[in-house]
C-alpha cells in the first residue's frame, strides 16, 4: 500500500530514470522545480532539467525542440497551463513536426478546488483527444503512474499522463497494457460499467449491490474498443470518467456501432461550477461520489 501521491511518484521515478536514460529531459515552468532541486536531480542533471520560468508556451515548444534533437522530453505543469494554454504548441510543436514527447499534468479536473476555475481542467482529455496519435493515460494509482512513465521513457511516442490527487486504494494488475480490465463480472446480459482511473473505487462502491460488470481502464486513447466488444454482454453501458462528461462516448459508440446498445455517460458537467472548497465537495455536487453514482446509475437502469 503506497502512501505517496501520484505527483510524488512522478518525481521519484523521473529522478531515477534521469540517471539511467541519457535522452530523458524534464522541462518545467516553475511548478515542481522545487522538488527536483530538493532531491538533488537538478544538481546532477543541470542540462536535462530545464526551468523556463512561468512560460508554459515556451515550456512546450522547448520540449518539442529537444525532441527534434533526439531527446526524450517531459513537459510538466498544471493541466490548464500545460494542455489548454499551450495547446497550439502541443499541436504544432509535437504533432505537426512529427515528433513525440511526454506531457505530465497535475491538478486534474478540480484537485485543488479552492483555487477555483483557473486551476481546473475538466476538458484536458477531450482536448488532447482531438490530436492524432497521442496516448492518453489517466492512472488511478501511483503504481500505475510509475508504469506509464517508465513505458513512455522507453519509446518516442506522444504520451499524455494525467496525474491526480485522487487515487484508488490499490493499483489494478493488467492496467499497464491499456486494455479494459474486468473488476467484477455480472451475469450474462448484465449492464457494463466502465470506470476510468480514480473513478474505480467510487464505481465499485456504487455498484456493489448491482448485478453489473465493472471494467477498469487507465488508458483512454487509444481506447480499448476490441476489449469493450468482447466484454460487453448486454445492451446497457455506463461510462464513468473523472473529467468532461462524454469524453470517451464516441469511442464506446464506435466500438459497439453494429450492436443495439444504450449509453449513459457520467463525468464532470460542462457548466462552470463557481464553488471553492474541496474536490470531494465538487464530486458530491456533480454526482461523482459513490452515493451520487449509485443514484444516477440505478435511475438510468430502472433498478
Amino acid at each position, binding site marked *: 500500500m503506497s502512501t505517496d501521491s501520484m505527483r510524488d511518484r512522478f518525481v521519484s521515478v523521473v529522478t531515477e530514470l534521469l540517471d539511467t536514460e541519457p535522452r530523458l529531459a524534464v522541462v518545467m515552468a516553475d511548478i515542481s522545480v522545487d522538488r527536483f532541486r530538493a532531491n538533488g536531480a537538478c544538481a546532477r542533471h543541470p542540462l536535462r532539467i530545464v526551468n523556463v520560468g512561468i512560460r508554459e*508556451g515556451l515550456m512546450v515548444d522547448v520540449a518539442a525542440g529537444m525532441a527534434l534533437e533526439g531527446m526524450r522530453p517531459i513537459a510538466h505543469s498544471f493541466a490548464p497551463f500545460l494542455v489548454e494554454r499551450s495547446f497550439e504548441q502541443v499541436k504544432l510543436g509535437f504533432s505537426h513536426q512529427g515528433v513525440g514527447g511526454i506531457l505530465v499534468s497535475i491538478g486534474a479536473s478540480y484537485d485543488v478546488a479552492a483555487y477555483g476555475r483557473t486551476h481546473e481542467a475538466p476538458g484536458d482529455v477531450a482536448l488532447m483527444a482531438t490530436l492524432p496519435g497521442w496516448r492518453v493515460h489517466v492512472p488511478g494509482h501511483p503504481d500505475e503512474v510509475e508504469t506509464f512513465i517508465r513505458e513512455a521513457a522507453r519509446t518516442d511516442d506522444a504520451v499524455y499522463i494525467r496525474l491526480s490527487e485522487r487515487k484508488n486504494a490499490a493499483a489494478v494488475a493488467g492496467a499497464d497494457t491499456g486494455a479494459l480490465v474486468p473488476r467484477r463480472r455480472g451475469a450474462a446480459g448484465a449492464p457494463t460499467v466502465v470506470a476510468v482511473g480514480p473513478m474505480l473505487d467510487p464505481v465499485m462502491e456504487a455498484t456493489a449491490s448491482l448485478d453489473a460488470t465493472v471494467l477498469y481502464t487507465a488508458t483512454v486513447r487509444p481506447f480499448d474498443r476490441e476489449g469493450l466488444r468482447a466484454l460487453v454482454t448486454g445492451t446497457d453501458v455506463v461510462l464513468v470518467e473523472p473529467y468532461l462528461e462524454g469524453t470517451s462516448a464516441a469511442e464506446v459508440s464506435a466500438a459497439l456501432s453494429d450492436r443495439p446498445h444504450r449509453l449513459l455517460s457520467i463525468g464532470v458537467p460542462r457548466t462552470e461550477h463557481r464553488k471553492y472548497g474541496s474536490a470531494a465537495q465538487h464530486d458530491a455536487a456533480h454526482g461523482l461520489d459513490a452515493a451520487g453514482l449509485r443514484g444516477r446509475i440505478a435511475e438510468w437502469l430502472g433498478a
Partner: protein
Amino acid sequence: MTYATQESNAESTTPETPHGYEDLRRLISLMTGDEKHSSSATSTLDVLWVLYDRVLRIDPRRADDDDRDRFLLSKGHGPMAYYAVLAAKGFIDEGALRTWARYESTLGLHPDRNLVPGVEISSGSLGHGLPIAVGMALGLRARGKDGPRLFCLLGDAEFDEGSNGEAIVAAARFGLEALTAVIVDNQSSSLGWPGGIEQRFAVEGWAAVTVDGRDHGALEAVLTSPHPGVPLAVVAVVEPKE
C-alpha cells in the same frame, strides 16, 4: 557559375552550387508565374541567400547530418524565396517548384519538414520557431554537441507574437551562443516597435545588431561575427512592405 556548367556536373560529387543568386528570381517565377513578386516573397531573399551560400554548414547530400547547422524558417509565410534557395542549393528539385501549392505538391504555402528535405521545422503559425530553436539549442547542449549552430528567421510582424518574448529571455539567460535570430524587418508590424527591434534583444543580454537586409557583405559579416556566451540577434532591414 552558370546553369549549363552545373548541368554537366550533375553526377559530380563536388558540393558546388547548382545555381547562383541570379537564378533565384527565375526559380521564384516557376512558383508565382510572373517576374514581379510580392514583398512577402522577396523580403527574405537576400538573407536566405547569404545564409545558404556563405554561412550555413550544410550539405544537400546529407540533409540530416547530425553535425549540420540548423536553419529554422519561423516566418513560414511567403516561402517562395526559401524554396527557391533550397532548389538553388540542391535540396529540392527545380521541377518541384512548378507544383507549388498544388494538392500533390510537397511545397505548400507554408513549409512542412515532413515533406521537404532540409526543412528543419514545419511553420506557418507565427511565433513558434524561436521557442523551438531554444529547445533545439538546449537539446544539442544536453547531447554535448557544441558544433552545430542554429539560425532562426523571423519577420518584424511575426515579432508581435508574445511567445517570442518568452524565448528571448530564456535564450539569453541560458547563454545560448549557438543561436542566432534573424529578424527581417520590412516594417509590417501593425503596432510597430518604437526604438527598433534590436533593443528588445539587447536589453535581455543578446548581442544585437541592425544591418541592411539587402547588403550581402554586411549580412555575411554580422552573421559570422563571434558573440561569445550569448545569442545573436540580427535585424535585417529591407524596404517597407507595399
